[in-house]
């Protein structure tokens, strides 16, 4: 479904990503881990279309991925992902409004009614059935992320991109969210890419784990080389030693990690 062909990304002198060459099947759940500043979010943004590769290409079903965000790729950010001026229900109904052609994004008549029914159902599914008329600022962090996910899913994307979606949540809420994401992933047959700081999260969720790190390192010019995917693992049959080794490599500061 997605082919990444020899993708490089650099900003002026600073190389962020180098030589990415991977293939992802429909229905996979890929988690991206790595130290901060290692380019995993940059890669996610390339899939999203807000960042373009400097070299190489990313193909979606054999065609270059569009250079702007579109309805085939849903996104949930760590924050600012919902519209603060709409109630919970309106936030999700808006998805339908945006998908209808037109210049206002508002729905009328039967389309509006149907959208409200579907939105309500989606909100029940993510556990927000009791908060339909609340505004986002009245919700907890976890509920806001549930809302963001419901909003994205009503748009029926094929690919769901999650950019550290649970980074700001406390551990209990995070576990609930993991359950939710897994259920929705199976139910809606999505292809998921999730960026996370938390290696455990990467192992627990998903079918595939990518570790981003520098492949080579020049101590005199730390910006000379970018990061690549150092581990590309089918998750599930992981042994503890490997976990410990990756964990070790991630906890080292980027500057001193010589691969």
């Amino acid at each position, binding site marked *: 479904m997605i082919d990444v062909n020899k993708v490089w990304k650099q900003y002026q002198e600073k190389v962020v990503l180098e030589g990415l060459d991977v293939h992802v099947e429909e229905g996979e759940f890929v988690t991206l881990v790595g130290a901060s500043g290692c380019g995993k979010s940059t890669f996610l943004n390339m899939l999203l279309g807000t960042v373009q590769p400097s070299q190489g290409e990313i193909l979606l079903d054999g065609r270059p991925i569009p250079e*702007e965000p*579109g309805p085939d790729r849903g996104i949930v950010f760590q*924050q*600012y*992902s919902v519209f603060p001026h709409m109630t919970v229900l309106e936030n999700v109904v808006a*998805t339908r409004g945006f998908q209808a052609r037109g210049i206002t*994004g508002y729905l009328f008549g039967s389309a509006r009614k149907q959208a409200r029914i579907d939105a309500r159902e989606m909100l029940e599914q993510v556990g927000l059935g009791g908060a339909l008329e609340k*505004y986002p600022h009245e919700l907890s962090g976890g509920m806001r992320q549930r809302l963001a996910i419901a*909003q994205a899913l009503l748009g029926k994307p094929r690919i769901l991109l999650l950019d550290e979606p649970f980074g700001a949540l406390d551990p209990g809420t995070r576990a609930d969210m993991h359950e939710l994401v897994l259920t929705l992933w199976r139910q809606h047959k999505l292809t998921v890419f999730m960026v996370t700081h938390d290696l455990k999260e990467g192992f627990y969720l998903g079918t595939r784990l990518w570790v981003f790190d520098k492949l080579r390192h020049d101590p005199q010019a730390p910006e000379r080389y970018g990061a690549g995917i150092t581990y590309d693992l089918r998750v599930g049959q992981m042994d503890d030693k490997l976990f410990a080794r990756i964990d070790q490599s991630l906890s080292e500061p980027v500057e001193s990690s010589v691969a």
Partner: protein
Amino acid sequence: MKKLINQQPGRPLRFFLGLLPFVLLVLIYVVSSNARLEVNPNDKLLPDFSQIGDGIERMAFEPSKRSGEYLFWVDTASSLTRLATGVVIAAGVGLLIGMITGALPLFASGLSPLLTVVSLIPPLAILPILFIVFGLGELSKIVLIAIGITPFIARDIQRRTEEIPFEQLVKAQSLGANTAQIMIRVLLPQVLPKLIDAVRLSLGAGWLFLIAAEAVAATDGLGYRIFLVRRYMAMDVILPYVAWITLLAFVIDMALRRMNERLFPWHAQGVGK
């Protein structure tokens, strides 16, 4: 004894401290007024409260001998009409320009430099031009107010539009929204409360332009009256007019603030997130 920086007034003390300067000012006025009137009962500079009361009575509650109108209310009505028209036009144009330049980089490149230059022109300096072009009627006064505050509103709205998190624009696009939908459903509602704030801030300048224009060429209006009766040193009319203008400004400001809280309950807290 706590440090001064840590001392918080309680509610009654805060109220008392807030009232104190007003009481003092009135007291100083009464004392000086009495002192002057004692020396010269015909002094016009600091009329006492009964004279001011007469002035209000004459202007607001007795028909004018010349035209039969209640001048105070006629002046208020024309001034408020001019101010409101000018401000509404400025708000509309400012919102449009601000949103387009704030949301669309191509238009920002084309319009921002022009907007910056226009906002630097002192509006009062072009008042003569407005009189020449639009005549001495209502139009030139309204145009002065509009021209005077539109650049401020437009630039403020532009900045507010740019401040809306990029994530929201991306999110809307990932849900299938086009440019117009993003501007109307995502940006516009979030910018409207900011527009009201911008209008509140620009009303001070609005009054300034209004009174200046009325002083130069008008046949009624609060500013016109003040400048007219100045010729007779009629402080008993000028003072209540100034107080009235202050009160109007205060009430309008408060009404706009209340309106903001009412219409946009989500705005006060949790913006962003």
